[in-house]
């Protein structure tokens, strides 16, 4: 089996997937690419590009296994955990597993679109965004809005509200004094942390006065897997590195 993980700066989905790989202990080659230049869309040796082109997640890391491109951060983390024969990243009890999946789904549907949306407009627009190789029309439209500075104030306000709600929700989840979101450490901690640190850069007020949240963020940051992932940064502040993420919910 040949496998390469292509990832961007350690923020958002690239951070959670790199940390999950470290936690799993799997020996998989990693290569740094610039997601903000669309480099993900021109990977060598990709023969099966469905999951690369059409990922709901937008610009995230891509694992290429035997020519098949694999995407979606939470599912890549589950893949690493299961490929390693169970690395302790998912609860074994079915109900606890359901709770973790529900938490991750809230994070990927509500938090990550909000952070990515505010994040791209808060950073330099792509001067030479390589839009042509992007097969997905709706993802390309999000790149074009970024290039044109076409921020929708309604979506921006909704995104700020969703970040505040998720910070509050995380604080409440930790209110009983637990160390990790699901009790035991899991993918939920990595996925949530990976988006909240970028959110904190954009909306610091949403994090003020939340002691349990702050202590939990320090605990996650202190994990060797997260430290190793952050050490792969090539810019001064990877927390400000954003590329177009999931679309803002368009129906239902």
């Amino acid at each position, binding site marked *: 089996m040949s496998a390469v993980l292509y990832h961007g700066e350690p923020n958002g989905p690239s951070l959670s997937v790199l940390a999950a790989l470290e936690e799993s202990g799997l020996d998989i080659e990693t290569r740094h690419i610039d997601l903000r230049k669309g480099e993900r869309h021109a990977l060598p040796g990709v023969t099966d590009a469905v999951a690369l082109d059409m990922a709901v997640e937008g610009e995230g890391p891509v694992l290429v296994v035997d020519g098949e491109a694999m995407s979606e951060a939470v599912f890549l983390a589950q893949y690493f955990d299961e490929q390693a024969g169970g690395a302790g990243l998912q609860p074994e009890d079915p109900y606890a597993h359901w709770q973790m999946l529900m938490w991750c789904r809230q994070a990927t549907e509500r938090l990550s679109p909000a952070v990515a949306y505010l994040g791209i407009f808060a950073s330099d627009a792509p001067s030479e965004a390589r839009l042509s190789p992007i097969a997905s029309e709706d993802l390309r439209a999000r790149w074009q809005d970024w290039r044109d500075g076409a921020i929708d104030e309604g979506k921006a306000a909704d995104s700020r509200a969703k970040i505040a709600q998720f910070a509050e929700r995380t604080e409440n989840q930790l209110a009983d004094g637990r160390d990790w979101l699901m009790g035991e450490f899991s993918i939920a901690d990595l996925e949530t942390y990976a988006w909240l640190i970028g959110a904190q850069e954009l909306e610091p007020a949403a994090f003020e006065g939340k002691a349990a949240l702050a202590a939990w963020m320090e605990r996650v940051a202190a994990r060797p897997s997260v430290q190793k992932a952050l050490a792969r940064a090539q810019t001064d502040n990877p927390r400000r590195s954003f590329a177009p993420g*999931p679309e803002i919910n368009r129906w239902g």
Partner: protein
Amino acid sequence: MAEVKLYHWEPNANSGKPMLALVEKGVPFASHYINMLEFDQHQPEYLAVNPQGTIPAMFHGTRILTESTAIMEYVDEAFDGPALMPSDARDRWRIRWWMKFMDQWLGPSFSMIGWCTFVGPSLAHKSPEEREAMIARIPLPERRVAWRKAMFAEFGEEELAESKRRIALGVRMIEEELGKRAYIGSNQYSLADINIFNSTYMLPVGNPELTSPELTPNLWRWLKTVYRRPAVQRTWAMGSGRFTDRFNAIMGEFA
């Protein structure tokens, strides 16, 4: 074994997913029919079960579970019976990928067209005041927006065109996927087949311009294979009205 209670609408889309998963696993359950078009899901009795007011929801003993795909994953893990997920890690990844693609990209487009052409008109006989009162009871703001569009026919041309584009592309992608493997994402029947079948079984009558033995031979083969499963027939027999009639009409054509 703790008792299983399922709150669901017709065997179709989100409600049909946990119904079919339970029947495939051979798990007996008490069925609580929620009439979505009468807004049973926003009545106090149901909000006590699921404060979000979304269907389906499932009790397993005292545990309450929501979100159709996540419920299916729980059902597969918590009960004996045939495995509805393969053991290979890459197959499992692929199944999850396709379910997310359906739940968050293709499914909402099917839903928008369905609500525009069926759900909205089904409520047109109610007075505007009655419809406003129904909307006011909906807990989630996103759902209030969706129901308002459906009930007052406020869909824009552009968003309907975008949904139709996604449906045509999604059907082509599923056709391509089923040209690679016997089932969605793997070579065994799984949660991804239950998920995607629930939103595609009506394509032969609803979208014959996209789905036919000539245009989509692999999708056609797969639809027939899944249609013929005893659990599928038992599940659709639990429905009432238009969905089951339509299902049986399609089955008749294949017989």
